[in-house]
C-alpha cells in the first residue's frame, strides 16, 4: 500500500525565511544601537532602525500594526518636537501609554528605532494595552510614513520656508502633503492649523473628519503678513489674501477677496493671551468641551499653536479637557526648545533656530524678557542645518536693540525684536538711526557668534546695525560658550540660539560638563 503523501503547509520555507530575516533584522538593529552608543557615536536614535529596516523592509508596518491604540503622526516646519511632547503628556494624563520617537529623529529609521526598542526577538511588539505611538515626522517623510504607519490621527501645524537646499521650494512640500492626506481612510482624523492658509486649505483633500485650531486674540496680531510670509496668495484662485489680523509669517485671519476662501473657524482656540516674562504664558483655551485657563512654562505665540494642536489631538483621542490642561501646566520644555538651566549663577537658555520664521519668533520671545540677555548665535551649514545660510538675511535682526526705558520702570529694558515690519515697506527693513532720546545700555546686548558660518552671522548682524566686530566671531563652540558666559553677569541670562546640528553640539558640550543629561537620555 502506498502511503498518502503528507500534506505540506503552503510555502513553509518562505515563512521560515521571513521569520528568520525578521529576527535577524531585529537583532542586528539592536546590536547596531548598542555599538553606536559604545563607540560614542551618539545615542543610536536612528541607526538601529536603519539597519533593521534595510534587512527587513516590512518591519516598520509590521511593528506599527501591533500598536494597541494605533499612532498619531505630527508634522509641520516648526514645533514638531514640542507638540509631540505635549500630546504625549496629555495622553499619559488620559490613561494612555504614549510611545515617542526621540528628539528630532523623525525619518522612517527613527520611527523604526523607537518601535524596535519595544520589540521582542521575533519582531513581536511588547507594548502595554494603552500604547499609542506619538511620532514626529519630517515634512518630506509624511507621505512615506502614512501608508506604513496607518495613523488614526495626523496633525499638521504649519508650513514655512526651511532648508530650501533640501526641499527646493515650499510649494513642493504642500503638494506632497495634499497627496498624502488624500490617501488617508475616512476614519483618520486630521488636525490642521486654521491660521495657516497653506495648512488649513489641505482640508479639501481630506476624506475623514477635520479638526481646526487657531488663535482668536486679535491683540497679538499685526497688520498684514511679514516679508517672510510664504503663502500670501489664495490657494484656490491665486489672488492675494486680505488679513484682518496677522500673527507672524503668513499666519493670521485671512480671506480671499476674489473667491471668498477664508480661514475656517477653529474648534479649539486660544484667547486672552498674556505673556509673563519670556518663558511663561497664560491663555484661555476654548474647545467643544468647554473653556479652561492654561498656564504654559514657555513663551512665544508659536508655543500656543503647539499647545492648541496638542489639545485638539488629545481631545480627538478621547482625553478629557481637565487632563489636557493639567498636563500642559506641568509641561517642561524640550531640549533646545527654550530649555533653561543655571550655570555658575547665570541662567542659560537654549532656543533652536532653523528658519526665518522660527528665528523671528525666538527674537520676539526674547523681547518679552525683562532684562537684556547676552546672545550667542551658533550658525552651522551642515546638511541637517541647510547648507545655504542665505536664510539669515530673511530674519529681522534690525529691531534687535535693547533700549533703556524710563527710570520709572525701574531700569527695565525692552527689546524691540523685529516685530513691526510691514510687507513691502522697504525703508522699514532698515535699522533705525539711534535717536538722541534713547540711552542705550552701554554694554548690551553683548553679541557672540560661533559655528561653521560664524562670519556670515556676524556680517548679517553688522548690516542690521548691531554692534559686532571681528572680536564677536568665535568659531570654536567651546571657547564661544566660555566667553559668552564670562560676559554675562551673575544673575543675568545668556541666550544661546543655535541651528540644528549646533544645538546638538551645545547639548553635548553641556552634557560633558555635567550640566545636562545626554540627549538620548531625555524622555
Amino acid at each position, binding site marked *: 500500500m502506498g502511503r498518502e503523501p503528507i500534506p505540506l503547509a503552503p510555502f513553509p520555507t518562505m515563512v521560515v525565511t521571513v521569520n528568520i530575516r525578521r529576527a535577524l533584522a531585529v537583532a542586528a538593529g539592536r546590536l547596531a544601537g548598542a555599538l553606536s552608543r559604545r563607540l560614542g557615536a551618539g545615542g543610536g536614535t536612528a541607526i538601529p532602525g536603519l539597519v533593521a529596516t534595510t534587512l527587513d523592509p516590512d518591519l516598520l508596518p509590521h511593528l506599527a500594526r501591533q500598536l494597541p491604540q494605533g499612532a498619531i503622526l505630527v508634522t509641520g516646519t516648526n514645533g514638531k518636537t514640542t507638540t509631540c511632547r505635549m500630546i504625549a503628556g496629555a495622553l499619559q494624563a488620559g490613561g494612555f501609554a504614549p510611545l515617542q520617537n526621540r528628539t528630532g529623529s523623525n525619518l522612517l529609521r527613527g520611527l523604526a528605532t523607537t518601535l524596535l526598542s519595544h520589540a521582542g526577538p521575533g519582531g513581536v511588539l511588547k507594548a502595554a494595552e494603552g500604547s499609542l505611538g506619538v511620532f514626529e515626522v519630517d515634512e518630506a517623510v509624511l507621505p512615506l510614513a502614512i501608508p506604513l504607519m496607518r495613523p488614526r490621527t495626523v496633525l499638521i501645524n504649519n508650513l514655512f*520656508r526651511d532648508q*530650501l*537646499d533640501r526641499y*527646493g*521650494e*515650499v*510649494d513642493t512640500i504642500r503638494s506632497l502633503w495634499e497627496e498624502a492626506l488624500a490617501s488617508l481612510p475616512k476614519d483618520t482624523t486630521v488636525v490642521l492649523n486654521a491660521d495657516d492658509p497653506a495648512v488649513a486649505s489641505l482640508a479639501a483633500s481630506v476624506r475623514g473628519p477635520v479638526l481646526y485650531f487657531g488663535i482668536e486674540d486679535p491683540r497679538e496680531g499685526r497688520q498684514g503678513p511679514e*516679508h*517672510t510670509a*510664504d503663502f*500670501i*496668495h489664495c490657494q484656490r484662485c*491665486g489672488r492675494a489674501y486680505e488679513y484682518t489680523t496677522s500673527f507672524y509669517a503668513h499666519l493670521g485671519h485671512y480671506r480671499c477677496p476674489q473667491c471668498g476662501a477664508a480661514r475656517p473657524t477653529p474648534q479649539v482656540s486660544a484667547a486672552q493671551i498674556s505673556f509673563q516674562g519670556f518663558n511663561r504664558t497664560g491663555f484661555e483655551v476654548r474647545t467643544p468641551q468647554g473653556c479652561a485657563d492654561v498656564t504654559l512654562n514657555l513663551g512665544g505665540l508659536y508655543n500656543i499653536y503647539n499647545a492648541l494642536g496638542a489639545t485638539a489631538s488629545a481631545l480627538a483621542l478621547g482625553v478629557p479637557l481637565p487632563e489636557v490642561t493639567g498636563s500642559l501646566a506641568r509641561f517642561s520644555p524640550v531640549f533646545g526648545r527654550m530649555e533653561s538651566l543655571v550655570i555658575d549663577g547665570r541662567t542659560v537658555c537654549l532656543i533652536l533656530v532653523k528658519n526665518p520664521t522660527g528665528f523671528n519668533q525666538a527674537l520676539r520671545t526674547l523681547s518679552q524678557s525683562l532684562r537684556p540677555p547676552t546672545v550667542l548665535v551658533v550658525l552651522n*551649514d551642515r546638511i541637517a542645518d541647510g*547648507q*545655504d*545660510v*542665505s*536664510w*539669515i*538675511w*530673511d530674519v529681522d535682526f534690525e529691531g534687535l536693540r535693547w533700549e533703556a526705558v524710563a527710570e520709572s520702570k525701574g531700569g527695565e529694558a525692552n527689546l524691540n525684536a523685529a516685530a513691526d515690519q510691514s*510687507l*513691502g*515697506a*522697504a*525703508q522699514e*527693513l*532698515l535699522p533705525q538711526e*539711534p535717536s538722541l532720546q534713547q540711552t542705550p545700555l552701554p554694554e548690551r546686548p553683548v553679541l557672540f557668534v560661533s559655528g*561653521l*558660518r*560664524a*562670519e*556670515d552671522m*556676524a*556680517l*548679517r548682524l*553688522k*548690516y*542690521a*546695525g548691531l554692534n*559686532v*566686530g*571681528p572680536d564677536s*566671531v568665535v568659531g570654536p563652540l567651546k571657547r564661544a560658550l566660555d566667553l559668552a558666559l564670562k560676559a554675562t553677569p551673575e544673575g543675568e541670562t545668556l541666550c544661546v540660539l543655535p541651528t540644528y546640528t549646533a544645538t546638538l553640539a551645545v547639548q553635548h558640550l553641556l552634557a560633558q560638563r555635567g550640566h545636562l543629561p545626554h540627549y538620548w537620555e531625555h524622555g
Partner: protein
Amino acid sequence: MSKEKGNNAPVTERGNSLELNIGHLYPAEMNLYGDRGNILCLVQRCRWRGIEARVKSIGLGESWPQGLDLLFFGGGPDAQQKGVARDLLETKGEGLRHDLEDGLVALAICGGFQLLCRYYRPAEGPDLAGLGFFDAWTEHPGPRVPRCIGNVVVEWEKSKLVGFENHGGRTYLGASCHPLGRVRRGHGNNGKDRTEGAIHRNTFASYLHGPLLPKNPLFADHLLRLALERRYGPMVLPPLDDTLEDLAHAAALRRGGG
C-alpha cells in the same frame, strides 16, 4: 559703525550731498532666498559713506517708476514666477527695457535673471515669455533631473565671487550675451559651459544667493560706483572697514572648496 558715518562723504562739485534711488522689484513675490540682503547691503554701504539711499518697492500692478539709479530683482518660487512674468511684461516692460538699454545699473538674481532673458521653458506646459533683455534662455530639464544646489565660487574680473545656488532651470547664453564670470566651483548657468550669470549694458545677472552682495563687497561697490557715476560723473568711493565682509568671503571660499 558711527565712526564710519559721514567721514569723507562724497559730495557733488557744488558740495551737495549725494543720494541714490534704489528700486526693489516685486519684494513680496521674489524674496525667497534672503535676496533682500542685497538691498540691505547697498543701503548700508551708502549710509556709511554719508550717501542717502532711498528704496522704492515696485509691486504687482504698479507702473514703471521714473528716476531710479539702481534696480534689484530677486529670486522667487516657481509658483509666483508666472504671475510676475505676466505683470512684468504687461505693466512695466516698456519702461524697464528703455531704462536698462539706457544704462540703468541693475542686479537680477536667479528668478529675476530668468525673467530678463528671452523665455523660460518649464518642465511641463508652455514657455513663459521673458523681457528678452538678455540674449539668453532657460530650460527646466524636468523634475527627475536634480536641481543645481550648492556653494559656488566664480572668477569675476580679478577676484572671486562667492554664493549659493539653488535653481532647477538651466540658462544658456546667446552669442551676443557675456557671462558675469567663470564658474570655479558649482554649476553656474547650466552646469555645462562654466558660465555664470550675464552682463549687458549696466545690468548684471547671477544665480548666486548668499546673498551675493554682502559677502562680495568689491562687487557691491562696483554697482554703487557705476550707479553714482551715471548720475553724478566720475568719483572715488571712500573705502569702508570690510574686515567682517572679508572674513565671511573667506569662510564661504573655505566651505565652498574654492
